């Protein structure tokens, strides 16, 4: 007689209880095949989370396979907690991006905070000390009170966790677009550095070796979080608030230090973070990687309250927990160490040679599942995509009031200053932050060396919607541009694929085409994918989000001291690098004036992208130019306004283009600042930085403003929306 009252195996079948957990009839039948009998309640719960999109990538696996994952410097690609890349001197950089979209939609503070906590643990479990955090955020327009609420909550949640644990948040990006109404995107990235010899894997090996649980006591929070993350948001989502986990950065900090200390012990066999699907995914994945079995004695798990059943325990997503496998006989050494860190820890199981995951509670068997099929035989769905019709649209903004367009764009929160956000994040803790949020990528020095890691994150969803294939290329290229703009050599990247429901053929096509484009760009730009995450079913009550692949990239600066003393000042010349084309599909002027995204081809030449980027990078490092700013959202006009406002300098520029071209958003262009008369390939000198005033003259339109007017609009873009008390 079980001590927990749970549905029986027959109840599960007859009442289709598996459907509530997100499994289909066919998937349920497959579970029966694997087990050779009907699953009980604990077992079906385990299958449902392991086979959720979040854990199994069942709709996205075929696309992820296209990505190049190896390279000269790649030490460990996807498959573990995070990717590992060589940065010389026997050191490595470790990084990954992950989404926390659904939790943030229903509980913004905790959703965002635990997103940060989770990605930090992924990095730490590899053995790296985190040196930088980044985030990519999407919200609906701030004219809506709910979006302001979400922005406030998400930003304070990111800060609340990152500031407390003491890792600087050094870069990020945000876009406000109606497509994210009610379905914000919160993607968090963490970058760490480690000695190459210490790289850990999440593996369980060696019969008799002990399984140790360390961290927060398990509670009932976050049960079925992974399943929740794999559904469309609906009116009922609010009732899923209990599926949102609660962050505890203080315990997270102690756990981080304790984990890094444990990793220094030779008796450690394997370690994995208990993230999505908690104890279930960590134990079964470790056993699968070690080609072993595992017995867990769940009555030994530290719990927050009495009466938590094996089902709840296995599905709980209580934060700040790690699972370790240590050599038999050394468990006390680890338990003593964790006690010194004032963390709960217990031996909860052992590695077996049975190839099965067996869960006991007070000697009663609650689950008996073969390890390999649980992870390897997760269903994979290959669906039919449908290519959308291309719009036959001719753009002509030449008759529009382009001065007004300029004013409206620079005061829009997407293009305005982001101080409101990044000043809530500690960006210098650790005292190695060379470049922080504000204008351009983050740069963090590797402590005790002259090396530095450049890190950037970006996602241009309107381009992907307009032209999924070329838009996918552009997303990678855009981040590449951000990295070379620091003078760094791009090393590798991580991706987070945020899309709507893959069961919609048009969205499936977006996934198919955009990942193909991204894979091509990764090859051409020599930035393999070393880690990643997928978030599908991002739909609100009426529509799907724009397809939003977000790319995180890191680059290496061999000697960061070249940045010392570079000052941008009046008299510096401003150059435009690259040809401007009348490319408006997915642009911000199109959003503003047409209120839609046309499906039209966007061109990008990846070979040119690479050579131009690497040439400019070298010139910056060599001191020939002072600053590189890639042209992105809002085109040249917005970039020049941002440049002037950020440095508090005026601008006087004349450009041989039509007025509307100022807002074109074609690829591979930069604004470069250098001394006058500098020879830069494919560049024209368009003007000078000045003490005051802001003027851009084109063939037919002149934008002329006081600098204070431009800077004021730029600085006030977000604060002016956030002053009202909601």
């Amino acid at each position, binding site marked *: 007689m079980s001590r927990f009252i749970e549905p029986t195996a027959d109840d599960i079948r007859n009442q289709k209880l598996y459907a509530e957990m997100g499994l289909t009839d066919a998937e349920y039948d497959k579970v029966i095949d694997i087990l050779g009998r009907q699953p009980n309640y604990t077992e079906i719960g385990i299958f449902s989370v392991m086979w959720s999109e979040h854990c199994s990538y069942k709709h996205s696996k075929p696309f992820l396979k296209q990505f190049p994952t190896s390279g000269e410097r790649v030490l460990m690609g996807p498959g573990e907690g995070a990717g590992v890349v060589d940065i010389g001197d026997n050191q490595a950089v470790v990084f990954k991006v992950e989404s926390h979209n659904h939790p943030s939609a229903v509980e913004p503070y905790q959703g965002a905070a635990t997103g940060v906590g989770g990605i930090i643990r992924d990095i730490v479990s590899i053995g790296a000390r985190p040196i930088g955090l980044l985030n990519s955020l999407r919200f609906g327009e701030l004219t809506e009170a709910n979006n302001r609420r979400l922005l406030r909550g998400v930003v*304070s949640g990111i*800060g*609340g966790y990152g*500031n*407390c*644990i*003491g890792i600087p948040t050094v870069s990020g990006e945000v876009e406000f677009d109606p497509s994210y109404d009610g379905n914000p995107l919160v993607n968090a990235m963490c970058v760490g550095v480690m000695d190459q010899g210490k790289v850990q894997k999440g593996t369980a090996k060696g019969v008799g070796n002990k399984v140790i649980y360390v961290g927060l006591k398990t509670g009932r929070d976050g049960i079925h979080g992974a399943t929740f993350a794999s559904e469309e948001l609906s009116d009922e989502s609010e009732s899923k608030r209990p599926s949102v986990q609660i962050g*505890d*950065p*203080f*315990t997270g*900090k*102690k756990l981080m230090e304790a984990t890094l200390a444990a990793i220094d012990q030779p008796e450690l066999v394997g370690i994995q973070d208990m993230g999505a699907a908690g104890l279930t995914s960590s134990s079964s994945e470790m056993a699968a990687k070690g080609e072993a079995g595992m017995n867990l004695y769940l009555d030994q798990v530290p719990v927050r309250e009495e009466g938590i059943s094996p089902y709840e325990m296995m599905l709980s997503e209580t934060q700040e927990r790690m699972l370790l496998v240590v050599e038999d006989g050394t468990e006390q050494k680890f338990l003593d160490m964790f006690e010194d*860190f*004032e963390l709960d820890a217990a031996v909860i199981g052992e590695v077996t040679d049975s190839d099965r995951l067996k869960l006991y509670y007070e000697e009663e068997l609650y689950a008996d599942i073969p390890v390999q099929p649980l992870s390897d035989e997760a269903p994979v769905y290959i669906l039919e995509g449908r290519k959308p019709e291309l719009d036959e649209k001719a753009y002509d903004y030449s008759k529009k009031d382009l001065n007004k367009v300029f004013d409206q764009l620079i005061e829009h929160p997407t293009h305005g200053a982001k*101080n409101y956000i*990044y*000043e*809530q*994040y*500690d*960006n*210098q*803790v*650790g*005292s*190695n*932050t*060379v470049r922080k949020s504000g204008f351009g990528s983050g740069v963090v*020095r590797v402590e005790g060396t002259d090396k530095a890691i450049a890190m950037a994150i970006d996602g241009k969803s309107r381009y992907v919607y307009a032209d999924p294939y070329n838009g996918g290329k552009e997303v990678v290229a855009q981040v590449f541009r951000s990295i070379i703009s620091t003078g760094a050599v791009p090393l590798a990247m991580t991706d987070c694929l945020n899309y709507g429901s893959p069961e919609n053929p048009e969205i499936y096509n977006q996934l198919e085409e955009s990942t193909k484009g991204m894979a091509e760009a990764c090859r051409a730009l020599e930035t393999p994918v070393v880690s990643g995450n997928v978030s599908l079913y991002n739909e609100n009550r009426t529509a799907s989000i724009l397809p939003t692949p977000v790319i995180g990239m890191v680059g290496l600066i061999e000697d*960061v*001291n070249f*940045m*010392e*003393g570079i000052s941008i000042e009046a008299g510096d010349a401003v150059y435009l690098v690259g040809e401007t084309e009348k490319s408006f599909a997915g642009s911000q002027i199109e959003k503003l004036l047409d209120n839609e995204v046309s499906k039209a081809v966007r061109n990008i030449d990846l070979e040119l992208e690479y050579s131009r980027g690497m040439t400019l990078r070298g010139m910056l490092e060599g001191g020939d130019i002072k600053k590189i700013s890639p042209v992105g959202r809002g085109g040249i006009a917005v970039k020049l306004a941002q440049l002037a406002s950020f440095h508090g300098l005026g601008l006087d520029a004349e450009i041989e283009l039509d007025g509307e071209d100022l807002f074109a958003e074609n690829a591979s262009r930069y604004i470069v600042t250098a001394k006058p008369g500098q020879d830069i390939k494919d560049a024209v000198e368009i003007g000078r930085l000045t003490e005051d005033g802001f003027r851009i003259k084109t063939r037919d339109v002149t934008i002329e403003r006081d600098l204070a007017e431009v800077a004021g609009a730029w600085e006030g873009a977000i604060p002016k929306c956030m002053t009202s008390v909601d």
Partner: protein
Amino acid sequence: MKFAVIQFPGSNCDRDLLNAALKVGAEAEFVDYRTTSLEDFDGVLIPGGFSFGDYLRSGAMAGVAPVTKAIKEAADAGKPVLGICNGFQILTEVGLLPGALIFNDQHTFISRDESLKVVNNETAFTRGYGQGEDVVYPVAHGEGHYYCDDETYDRLAANNQIVLTYNENPNGSRNDIAGIVNEKGNVLGMMPHPERALETLLGSDDGLKLFREMTKWEANHV
């Protein structure tokens, strides 16, 4: 000079502060919060960040930690004690400095480079600065609004205990106060982070003088 850098559970500017002391040629060691004596050290550095998560009130838990008694003994013995950010919060919590740090007026965390004024260069900490010298140190805090009653303020002003003020008050602190010393002049608390201002590459090296002066404590302090 040999400094103790106190480590509370959750302290996160501890390495920065240790590195700062080492950079100016002092000796420095981490000291666990369970330690009960600091007799082997010539000075005490209490780092910023969060102690015990500060879920209750900044510095509240640290204020009752075993090492606190030893910090008080060091202060009584006239050794230099510097508390930065959370360290300042702890110093006010345990009564080594008057007043309290409360939530920033805007109720959000604030992190940026801050322009400050050294308004008292007669302490043994600040002797290296000119009177009224402007310096840039980063700030990063959620509870940095310095609060005290009128009587306390008058006493601080009369005794010349206000050492550092904000040029553009970021948090609502009374009379722009960013840092104060005790009456004896050997305990300094400040919200800004001089240990993050040691290299122009990172934005400012205005904090160097502070740490350099601390290494000359015997000669400086009268």
